[in-house]
């Protein structure tokens, strides 16, 4: 079957403004949007720039906006979309070229919340740091984030204030703050309780809708707030 793709194009070295190119190509019933992007790049326009890596919804590289909704191109079936398929880069991130966005600041914010286990006591020599199944379940839905940036890009609080840490970094923060083996809340409280931290979220839930892994960053942010209130009051 033939499908038409309308793709955002921008090369800052050649043009001041972006434009859209339209490609009508033959696609298979089983193709994902990433398959279509590959076909366009390989057979129609080799200058089309986009990120991709694993092709299995794990690396998060191919997150783009498809028909106005943030999706992983490698997971979205072309057959599930109607009419002309518009593909654009993630909103609010600076565009490097075509569908590729600048992610340095996104990962810098992630580093600010110290996304690693902080524990000041020596580990046992004869076993691992054990955790009960109940305690382990607290961070279910928090550790599965693939850092694609779809949630942060969809966040209206981030659109107006790009200093806001964003849902992805805060979800990752709770993955460690909520971990019973972690002792790093004191080190993270400064950034979480800052004016770019958890208080900038207004529970709009766009991040929940945008997450291709069906995670709930809003829930993580609310839990972080409760921990901060408990810690400080």
């Amino acid at each position, binding site marked *: 079957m033939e499908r038409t793709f309308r793709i955002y194009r921008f090369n800052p070295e050649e043009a001041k403004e972006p434009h859209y190119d339209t490609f009508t190509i033959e696609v298979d019933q089983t193709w994902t949007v990433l398959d279509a992007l590959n076909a366009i790049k390989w057979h129609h326009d080799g200058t089309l720039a986009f990120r991709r890596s694993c092709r299995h919804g794990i690396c998060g590289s191919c997150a783009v906006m498809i028909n106005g909704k943030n999706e992983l191109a490698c997971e979205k079936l072309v057959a599930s979309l109607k009419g002309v398929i518009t593909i654009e880069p993630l909103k609010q991130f600076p565009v490097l070229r075509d569908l590729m966005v600048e992610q340095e600041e996104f990962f810098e914010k992630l580093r600010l919340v110290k996304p690693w286990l902080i524990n000041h006591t020596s580990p046992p020599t004869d076993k691992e740091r054990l955790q009960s199944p109940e305690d382990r379940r607290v961070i279910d839905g928090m550790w599965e984030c693939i850092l694609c940036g779809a949630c942060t890009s969809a966040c209206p*609080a981030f659109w107006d204030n790009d200093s806001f840490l964003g849902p992805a970094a805060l979800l990752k923060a709770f993955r460690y703050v909520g971990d019973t083996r972690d002792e790093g809340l004191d080190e993270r409280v400064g950034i979480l309780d800052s004016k770019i931290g958890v208080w900038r979220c207004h529970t709009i839930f766009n991040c929940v809708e945008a997450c291709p892994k069906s995670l709930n960053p809003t829930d993580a942010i609310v839990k972080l707030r409760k921990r901060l*209130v408990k810690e*400080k009051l």
Partner: protein
Amino acid sequence: MSDRGIGSGGVLGWFFQRLTGIVLVPILLIHLLTMHRYHEHGLAWESVTRLMSNPYWKVLEIVFLTLALYHGLNGLYAIFQDYVHHSGWRLLLFSLACLAGLTLLAFGVVTVLSIQAPELAGAAGRPGP
């Protein structure tokens, strides 16, 4: 990344916003039902001032006024924090919000305290407010 907005946090502001929000619900209902609805001979200046001349109602109205002003202006300040990125402008707007809150509170408290029942105001030889 710019460092705009990094500074003191909002635990107290967030906590008291929720707390005042919860407390305001019953107080607002009491205020609306007593001041604007249930009066023996219909809503009238005399019946409202008679009710407001009661010291307990005065206390309730002052609490209502204080909490409502805090809740409203704190919400406004949260909007400033979202949309005003220059720290100087934010400080100015915060100061103006505080000034507006204190001024409105002073006017409100004076008004509530000066309300007297019509018969008392008449006995004192002056009209009620």
